[in-house]
């Protein structure tokens, strides 16, 4: 991972980043992170546009950054170039929407049942494929009434430490019950939870090359959380991509505004992945250990944005604390979905080719279910295998409730 903002001279062209890149392996034409990052960056520094359609094909998985022996920020160079890349009208229009899952969520959840019905209709999917190049093989996740609220705190529990839950779009618009699961898990571990009044974390905007949107959500989110964090609250996320974005201080998006950048960095330093927080409780001996036994074999898949947080693999260790549970850390690379990437018609085959290794290894493990904390990894695994994929928080809460899956 990068230490300096501009580490281009650290690149020795060793190609270890390309060897680690999921797209490079899956698509024979993709030039790979070494070329799109440091190599073309030298031209871009000299004022050449060096624009190429392949910039769109970067997943933003950060595996190149993690593999680099010399801490070159490869993916950030690609992301900056992606933001300047010119797309044809239709793809541009589609990606404008994909950069705004919050807006999409607000609109679809006015009448969620109707939205779900329309989005799942064959003719609608056919039209979306023809008009805006959304892969017809994909199903949109079901939308739900956005009713995740800060729970009322009983008088007896007022003294517990308060956490600020950053819900993210999926939890807010698709699975508010996952939010309630997370809140209940944290309450069972003596925390009070306040749901942050935030919007999208900005990862989809960056991934779709929409800098303006990314800046707007980063600014907005920082302003909405800075006071609570200033008052000593920690931020907790259950989505690995949101966590990655918050922890990296919104990916350096705000560095032109010293005050906001400083606030973003303070928020980042106080942001914890749900499992990271619970594992810290476990390490301190303060985790609620009232976990009922469950006879369960789970395949665990670590999302790329979990790996890019550099926190080890806390969910894997937490799941194994449930008596009777065996967990298999699949460790077969990226799933290929990468948020909105897998929905794009022209990228669908690459997305599935990347996931193939993961699908094969999951099938070989023959689990009762797959646990992974990223919602789009879950979608991809269910699309590419016959196994159910759920958030590990759900398994943990069931173990507390004594209702094993």
């Amino acid at each position, binding site marked *: 991972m990068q230490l300096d903002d501009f580490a281009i001279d650290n690149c020795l062209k060793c190609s270890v980043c390309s060897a680690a890149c999921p797209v490079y392996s899956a698509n024979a034409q993709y030039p790979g992170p070494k070329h799109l990052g440091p190599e073309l960056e030298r031209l871009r520094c000299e004022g050449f546009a060096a624009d190429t359609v392949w910039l769109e094909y970067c997943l933003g998985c950060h595996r190149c950054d993690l*593999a*680099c022996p010399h801490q070159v920020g490869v993916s950030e160079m690609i992301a900056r170039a992606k933001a300047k890349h010119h797309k044809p009208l239709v793809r541009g229009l589609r990606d404008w929407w994909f950069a705004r899952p919050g807006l999409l969520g607000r609109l679809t959840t006015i009448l969620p049942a109707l939205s779900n019905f329309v989005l799942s209709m064959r003719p609608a999917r056919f039209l979306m494929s023809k008009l805006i190049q959304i892969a017809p093989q994909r199903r949109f996740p079901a939308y739900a009434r956005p009713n995740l609220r800060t729970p009322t705190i009983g008088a007896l529990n007022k003294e517990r430490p308060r956490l600020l839950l950053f819900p993210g779009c999926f939890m807010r618009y698709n699975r508010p019950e996952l939010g309630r699961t997370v809140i209940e898990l944290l309450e069972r571990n003596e925390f009070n939870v306040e749901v942050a009044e935030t919007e999208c974390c900005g990862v989809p905007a960056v991934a779709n090359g929409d800098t303006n949107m990314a800046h707007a959500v980063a600014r907005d989110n920082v302003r909405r959380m800075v006071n609570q964090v200033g008052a000593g609250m920690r931020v907790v996320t259950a989505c690995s991509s949101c966590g990655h974005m918050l922890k990296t201080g919104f990916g350096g998006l705000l560095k032109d505004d010293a005050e906001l950048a400083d606030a973003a960095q303070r928020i*980042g*330093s106080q942001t914890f992945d749900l499992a990271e927080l619970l594992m810290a409780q476990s*390490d301190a001996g303060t985790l609620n250990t009232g976990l009922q036994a469950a006879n369960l074999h789970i395949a665990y898949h670590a999302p790329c944005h979990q790996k890019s947080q*550099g926190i080890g693999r806390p969910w894997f260790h937490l799941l194994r604390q449930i008596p009777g549970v065996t967990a298999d850390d699949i460790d077969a690379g990226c799933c290929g979905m990468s948020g909105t990437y897998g929905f794009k018609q022209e990228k669908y085959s690459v997305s599935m*080719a990347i996931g193939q290794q993961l699908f094969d290894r999951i099938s070989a493990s023959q689990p009762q279910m797959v646990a992974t904390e990223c919602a789009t990894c879950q979608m991809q695994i269910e699309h590419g295998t016959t196994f159910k994929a759920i958030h590990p928080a759900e398994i943990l809460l069931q173990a507390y409730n004594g209702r094993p899956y």
Partner: protein
Amino acid sequence: MDSHHFDVIVVGAGISGLTAAGAAARHNQKVALVATGPGSFVLRSGCLKAQELMQPGSKQEIGEAVAFFQEMAQAAGDPFEGNISEVRYLPTIFGDFQGIALAPRSLWNADPRSDATTAIVGIRELSCFDENFMAERMNGQARGLGFVCTYAARQISLSRIFGGPVTTLRIATRFDSDPGFRSELVNVLKHAASGFERVLVPGILGLHSSAQQFAQFERELGCSLSELATLPPSVSGLRLFNRLWGYLHEIGVELFQGFPVLKVQIQDGTCTELQVASPGHTMILRGECVVLAAGQDSAGLLGTEFARCDEQMRPLTSTGSVVAWNLFVAESGSYDRTEGSGDDMEILAGYRTGNLAAAARGRYAVG
């Protein structure tokens, strides 16, 4: 012991770090490996030269360390053939022969065996590999070394590589991910190999493939097959790294990849924690014993006080006192080094520090 607390933490995933982690894990220790990326070993071929291994005085220990490394590579599915007192002549892409003591199995059978007729198969559009030049030089070189064997150049075309410059890395990733590509490769190689007892190809047979997959491919081809190490990054070196990394994961070594160690915290002669530069907040890892196997970066982590290592691989200050009793430095420079890459010394340093750290663990209590 909590999830960030280990018996032994190894910093660095070069050949010494991987060996140290494997050696410590063999003693049933809870081991973590922290690394930003693979060491320089992967950029080279993964071969150990013979003359490097003839260190006076330490030959037996090198033998033990190398034997351990071979066991680990075998278990990882990328066996390392040879032994420290054997010399085998393996061809290079410059058309000459190098005396090699140990090499990955996929490279090992490329030696100039007597009476063998060998096809050197190049790939159309592949850069930095000239089969005609190689065959011509190798025929002359083999005669000079007294081998009775002949080499002939052949070239194949692969339809399934399209767009972009063709590199060994590109072909190797196709080999890994595309079964159709593997069948095509077998078929065109069979054609090129007809009339030959052996085929030599550039290193292209997968970044992750195992010895079993190699053997399967060789069976399908129907004649002896070997790879040649190409210019860095070498596919055989990357494959060795990937297989060893996967093996350590499998045996339960906790792998922390991607973020550098910022600081080695030392208090009153004990290394108390490592601070890792993960985003947001620093990750703290605590090890009962710590092995620094980060090459030149190890000295940087130890700071200005560090002068050299004692015979127990512990870092000493310039006045000769031990920096920390539970800290070990896989410092291959503490041995006399003859010419060469020093990979054997790295294996020895990794093996020694891994064992020493595992042995020291538990002898003292961390405060």
